[in-house]
């Protein structure tokens, strides 16, 4: 569903991505690993149209993503959950979720889609009228994932979703993600610094270093390669 070919991005003189190529499939989790500054966030921001690339292409179901505006890409069914989560703190929980329903659902489908999120994450339902700023870190993560799902996307782009979460909450989140992709046929690109937990749920893994892909392989094989782990994954 997602095909990235020879993608290159520069910020002025800084080369953030250099000739990155990979594929992500329906129902699969593709994890993108690498140290701080490797270019992971830049990759996701380019796919969702927030950053312009200088060379290469990204296609989604054959349609180009590169060169399109973020609003359009979102409407195509690509949901990007940004680094730092992207809860809109000035809005209530319910308003955050409703905002996710506008782009791809018909008016009559919207309420039910929000209620489905409350079913999946009952904690959010209990706090629907509260300001999103009152939520804990784990609840915020539920909210942004719920808000991405409410639009019924086909591809999720997640930027370090486990950052700042306790190991238990983080594991729950990964399990939810696994469930969603296996059941609903959703594709996911999961950017993580926490390589161990990302490798445990992913179907395919890519390691970025200084903007280039250094390895792309089965997660189990990556986890077993000790020198690779020490060099790029830090565990």
């Amino acid at each position, binding site marked *: 569903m997602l095909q990235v070919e020879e993608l290159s991005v520069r910020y002025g003189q800084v080369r953030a991505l250099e000739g990155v190529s990979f594929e992500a499939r329906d129902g699969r989790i593709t994890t993108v690993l690498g140290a701080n500054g490797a270019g992971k966030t830049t990759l996701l921001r380019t796919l969702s149209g927030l950053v312009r690339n200088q060379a290469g292409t990204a296609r989604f179901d054959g349609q180009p993503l590169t060169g399109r505006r973020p609003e359009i890409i979102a409407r195509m069914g690509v949901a990007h959950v940004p680094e730092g989560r992207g809860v809109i703190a000035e809005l209530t929980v319910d*308003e955050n979720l409703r*905002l996710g329903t506008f782009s791809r659902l018909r008016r009559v489908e919207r309420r039910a889609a929000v209620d489905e999120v409350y079913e999946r994450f009952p904690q959010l339902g209990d706090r629907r009228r509260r300001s999103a700023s009152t939520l804990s870190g784990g609840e915020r993560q539920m909210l942004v994932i719920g808000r991405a799902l409410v639009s019924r996307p086909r591809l999720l782009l997640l930027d370090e979703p486990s950052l700042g979460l306790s190991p238990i909450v983080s594991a729950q989140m990964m399990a939810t993600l696994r469930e969603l992709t296996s059941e609903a046929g959703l594709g996911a690109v999961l950017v993580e610094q926490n390589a161990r937990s990302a490798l445990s749920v992913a179907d395919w893994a890519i390691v970025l270093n200084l903007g280039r892909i250094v390895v792309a392989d089965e997660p189990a094989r990556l986890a077993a390669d000790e020198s690779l782990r020490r060099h790029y994954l830090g565990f």
Partner: protein
Amino acid sequence: MGLFVDILLSGVAQGMVFAAVALGLVLISRATGTINFAQGAMGMFTTFIAFSLLTHGVGYWPAFVAALAMGFVLGAVVERTLVRPLRGKPALNPVIVTIGLLIVLEGVAGSIWGNVARGFPAAFSQRGLVIGTTRVAFSHFDVFIVCAVAALVVAIVALFRWTDLGLRMRAAAFSPEVSQLLGVRVGRLFTLGWALACAAGSLAGLLVAPLSSFSPYYMDLNLVYGFTAAVLGGLLSPVGALVGGLVTGLAIAFVGGYVGPDLQPIAALALLLVVLMVRPQGLFGTTEVRRV
């Protein structure tokens, strides 16, 4: 006692006009984070368009509605052509552009309609109402001013609170990038914010023109007062703009009535300074919400 009541009433009417100017400033500040120094001048310009229509025999209400519509269009055009290209540049750039626009609009208005003071008609009688046996300083036209601005504030608050469009507008203002990622067409909403703001400015221009000596500069002082009102209200909330407008209107009226009209602008400046020093977030803003 009579004087006190008269001052109070005229302060309310004035305050509602300042509230309309402040509301425009708030809408723009929310949309693109810009302070629009041309807010008064845009209202002036569209009121002159109404003036031209009136002198060509168009009726008052068609001219009134045409001026509001022109304000809406002018706001949208200014956002698209002058403000949008400066997105991502230092925040001061669009502010300076609006100062330039103020000068241009006043210059163009002067060359089209002349730099002379004239009269502009009011929709209703400007003679004070008689309550019991006394005539108070509050006319049918003042009643209209209060109702028109109150209706505008209610409409804007309802838009933000209870409609999907309003939710999108708030989201775009608070988190443009996240909103874009959710498929919200942020650019269009910014344009809409400017358009609504300038329609509000046109309303202020139409309402205050009959009370002023109508020249290309008649909105300058109203912009100062409207700005005071907006800052007083915290620059973010429509209700804050309304209350800020009323407080400013009353303060100005009392200074004018008991001290002297010459001191009114200085009083507004003093009020502004006190607010900025004591409560920079305004009467309603919270430091959290305020974007600098």
